[in-house]
Structure formats: C-alpha cells, structure tokens
C-alpha cells in the first residue's frame, strides 16, 4: 500500500512538474521548432522572468504570476530587439549555426553574470496566498494515527493550471489566426509567404518576441514552484530542448506531452534514486531522443 501511494504521489508530482516544463519549453518550440532559431539563451530569459517576479513580489507584494503577464510585453519587445540583432548579424548572411550559437551562449552568460552581480548567488523565493498550502486527496488510513494520502501542493497546482490555460490559448492562437498560420508557414514555405505579401522576417521577429514573452511568464511559474538562483538557468537548457525534441520540434501539443514525460521521469528518479540524480534525466532523454528518434515521438 505504501508503495502504491509512493507511486501515486510520484505520478501526480510528475504531471504537475510537467505542466511547468511545458510552459518553459513551449517558447523553445516556437523559436527552435518553428523559426529554426537555436536560442539556447531561452532559459536565461526564464530566470530573468523569475527575478522580475521576485523583485515586484518582495517589494510590493504583488502576485508573481499576475506580474509576469503584466510585464510580458517588455519581454516581447526584448525579443523583437534580440531577433533584429540575430537577423542582421547572422541569419541574413547565412551564417546561422556556429556564430549564432556562440552569440546566444554569450547572451545566456551575460544575463547570468549580471543577475549574479546584482542579486548574488543566493536562492530567492516569492510568497503568495497559495505558496504554502497543500491539498491532500485520496486519504487512506493505514493505522488510526498514520494516514496515506496524495499531496497536491498549491505552489505546483497553480502554475500547472496557468501553464495549461496559457498553452491552450497559444495553440488556439497559432492555429486559428492569420499570424499563427504565417508562423507555421515560415518554417516551410517562405516563398509562398512573400507571394501573399507577408514579410517572413517580420513574422519571425514577432514570433520570437512571443517566445520570449512566454519565457517571462514561465519564469514566474518557476519561482512559484521552486527557489531560483541565477546559474540554475543552464541546467534547464537540456530540459527545454529535450522537451522540444521529444515533442517533435515545432508542435506545441507535442511539447506538452514531452514535458509530461520528462516531469514523470524526473519525479520517478527523485522518488526512487534520490533528487540529486534528477538533473541527469533530461539529458539522458535528450540524448536518447536525438540519437534514436530525432523527429520526435510524433515525428513529421
């Protein structure tokens, strides 16, 4: 019975974690999967989002998640700017791979070091009404004084719900609006877009902005779930790309499934092998995915 509850808890925790990962990775599904821009600095912008939520929350007590949606236009603008630089320095010249990778790596590094210079290397947290509460369900009395139950900590449940709603809206937006369909077309047929009088560069620029706006929100969700420190960003690089590759690159729905798989895998590793092994899981899955099924689980 205890093992059953251990497994049940691991499944629930894994799915909740997967919700967070989906938010963190869906931006990469847009930039890397659809636009073919390998933005390895994406996790750095997630951490930036965490810190903005942290500053506003610790100084004025505002809700971190609401804050992140309010400031997401700033991330969007940052994305426009970054894509501009990327476009003029690399994409236009056709030197996409080597130097642009180094460029984004530099951006990742600069963001991290600046955050360290300002905030130091201490872990930071936020507080909101839901961060301390845990709901317990499926209670089962083993003996009169010990009960087994499945934990639903609200600090995980709230980000999960927000993430799922956001991704649902994003998916609807991409498949039902002209802009969304143009983004999907940008990867496949730029020529057709030009014939329709759409500038692919403009489309890519805005879509990239969108991916950073999502990163900002994901950052707030992250700091609700766990304390954040500037250099944890790079630990998530393997994770977000693993989710993106597992999910079949440019598919938002695929990314959600990939994120759930990863969440479950990490949760089970933490439960049965110890939390210190968890960071290796995403890498292992990434490597397996890349080596054996690069087109993703639902490959095109």
């Amino acid at each position: 019975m205890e093992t059953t509850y251990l497994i049940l808890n691991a499944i629930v925790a894994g799915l909740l974690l997967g919700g967070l990962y989906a938010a963190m990775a869906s931006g990469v599904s847009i930039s890397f999967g659809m636009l073919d821009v390998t933005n390895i600095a994406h996790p750095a912008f997630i951490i930036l989002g965490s810190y903005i939520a942290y500053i506003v929350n610790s100084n004025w007590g505002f809700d971190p998640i609401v804050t992140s949606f309010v400031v997401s236009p700033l991330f969007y603008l940052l994305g426009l700017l970054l894509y501009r630089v990327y476009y003029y320095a690399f994409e236009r010249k056709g030197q996409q791979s080597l130097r642009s990778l180094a460029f984004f790596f530099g951006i990742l590094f600069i963001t991290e070091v600046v955050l360290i210079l300002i905030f130091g290397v201490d872990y930071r947290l936020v507080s909101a009404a839901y961060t301390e509460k845990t709901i317990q369900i499926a209670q089962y009395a083993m003996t009169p004084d010990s009960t087994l139950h499945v934990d639903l900590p609200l600090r995980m449940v709230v980000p999960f719900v927000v993430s799922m709603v956001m991704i649902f809206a994003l998916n609807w937006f991409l498949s039902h609006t002209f802009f969304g369909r143009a983004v999907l077309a940008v990867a496949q047929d730029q020529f057709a877009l030009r014939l329709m009088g759409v500038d692919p560069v403009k489309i890519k620029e805005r879509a990239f902005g969108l991916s950073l706006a999502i990163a900002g929100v994901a950052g707030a969700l992250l700091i609700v779930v766990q304390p954040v420190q500037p250099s944890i960003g790079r630990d998530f690089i393997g994770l977000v790309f693993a989710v993106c590759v597992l999910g079949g690159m440019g598919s938002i729905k695929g990314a959600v499934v990939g994120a759930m798989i990863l969440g479950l895998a990490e949760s089970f590793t933490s439960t049965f092998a110890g939390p210190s092994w968890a960071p290796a899981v995403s890498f292992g899955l990434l490597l397996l995915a890349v080596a054996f099924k690069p087109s993703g689980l639902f490959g095109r």
Partner: protein
Amino acid sequence: MQKMSNKVFIPVVYGVALAFGLLSMLAPNDYFYSAAYTVLLFVILSSAWNILGGYTGYVNFGTAAFFAMGAYTTVAIFKFAPGTPLIVMIIAGMLVAGLTGLGMGALTLRLRGVFFSIATLALSVVMFTFVVNWDYVGGARGAYVIAPRVAPLGFGRYIYFLYAVMIFLSATAMIVARIIETSTIGRGLEAIRDDELAAECCGVPTLRLKLLSTTISGALMGMAGTTYPYFVSYVEPASTFNLSYAVNSIAMPLIGGMTTWVGPLIGAVLLGTVQQVVQVTISSAWNLLIVGVLLVLFVTLAPEGIMGLWYDFRKKQRAKKGAAQ
C-alpha cells in the same frame, strides 16, 4: 608566402616554449606562476576547442565537462594509487575525455550540428550530477589531491614542475592543431565546415572526420584538466565544472580568429591576461562579464576575430600602396 613545414615548426615551437620557460625563472614571485598556469590552461582549451569549432564548424559547449573529466581522472587515480606519476594521469585523462568525445559524436553527429551543440551543453550537467553523486572522488564535498613534496626531474618545488609541464602541453596542443590544419585531414575538415553535403560528395568521409575531430578535441581538453588537481590541491565539482571554461574556450578562438592555430593562442593570451588582471583588481564576476560582452561584440561585429581584422588591415595597406605607385 611560403608556409613553414611541420618538420621546422615542431622544433621551433618547442624551442620557443623552452626559452619562455627559462625566461620565467626571472619571475619576481609565485603569483606569476599561478597566473601563467591559468593562461596556459586556456591556451590548451581554446586550441582544443578550435579543432572542432574553428576547423570543422561544430560548436562544443561542453569544454567544462571534458576538462573536468581530465581532472577527475587524476583524482580517481590519485585516490587509488597516490604515487602514480603525472604522465600516467595525463594519458588516462586524455583517453577518458577522448572516448567521451567519440561517444557523444557517434550519438549526435549524424544530425544537424545544433543537436550536437545542445547535447554537449547538457553533457556538462549530467557529468556534474554524476561526479556529485560519486563519493569515491569526494562527491559534492570535493577531494584533496596533495602534490608530492619533492618534484620530479629536479624541479624543486612542485609548482615549477607543473608550470613546465603546462608549457610543454600547450606547445603540444598548438603543434597538434597546426599539423591537423596543414594536413589533408585539415582540408577535409575545412570542406565539412564550408558545406558538409558537398564535402561528402567530393569523397570526404564526413562522419569519420567529424568523429576524429571531436575525439582529438575532447582528448586535448581532458589533457588540460589532468594537471589541475595538483595545481589547486582541492578539487570540488562546482568550480571544476565552471561554465567559465566553456565561455572562455569559445570566446578566445572567436576573438583571436578561428581559421588557424594562431587565433586561439592570441585570444587565450589576450583574454586570459586581461582576466588575471581584472580578477585581482576588480572581481571574478566582472571578469566573466567582460568575457561574455567581448564574445557577443566580436561575434556580431568582427566575426573573423583579431586575425580577420589584421588581414583586412594588411589588404587595405597593400591596396593603398598599390594606388600610390
């Protein structure tokens, strides 16, 4: 301009290295040796990175992992048999790191280059996790590696010996890079960098050459790490896997210039020295910021690095002379 043949180049480099080593004996204090050791470490790491990055066009973000593999090979051997000569550790570390490079390459190099790069980024995280959980080499707490009291070959203090070894290893790394660069293999790598499909269709065995270059590059990075435990005498995962190794080994060749062995050397000496100065005068966080900013600036504004700027300058000078005559 006639290129020097490798038969001349090898003795020249070792000769210069020896002269440099002898000159260092005039150094006023021990700080010089430790600063110079660090710069030499970066000479090796950036030369090694450039074999895959500059010559072949594949970005390795996992320098720290390969470096740490060399370092932890030394730690493991030291724990097992403390009296083992350094040369054994160097060779073992090269083997471990080289084979890891080969394995990584075999798994990811059939695909587009970005997948290899992302995989190397994640490699650092997993190797870190592995070492943190490996108690034999000290786990997260770290381990002491005490250098023998008497250095071999009559060097007196061990730091002098380590420094001499590092000079020799740097010279070797540059020679390896130069030999690859001037050989048929180098021509093949260059073809892969320019256009992999065309290279394959010109008879270049692209997969095999890419694997060769990840292996050599990884082995040299591991080599750089093998002496590190004796240098710091206390090894722990967080500093050994420091991301600054990856950033520096990418920034240095990019800033120096990636097409020849000279670029990484210039980049490493320049950036390495600046960092040593900034670290002492300001702080280590600031020096990392400088590296990051320089990397981004060079890659966007002067993508061919200092060597590229120099060639452009020479070309303009020549054009001016031509116009004047």
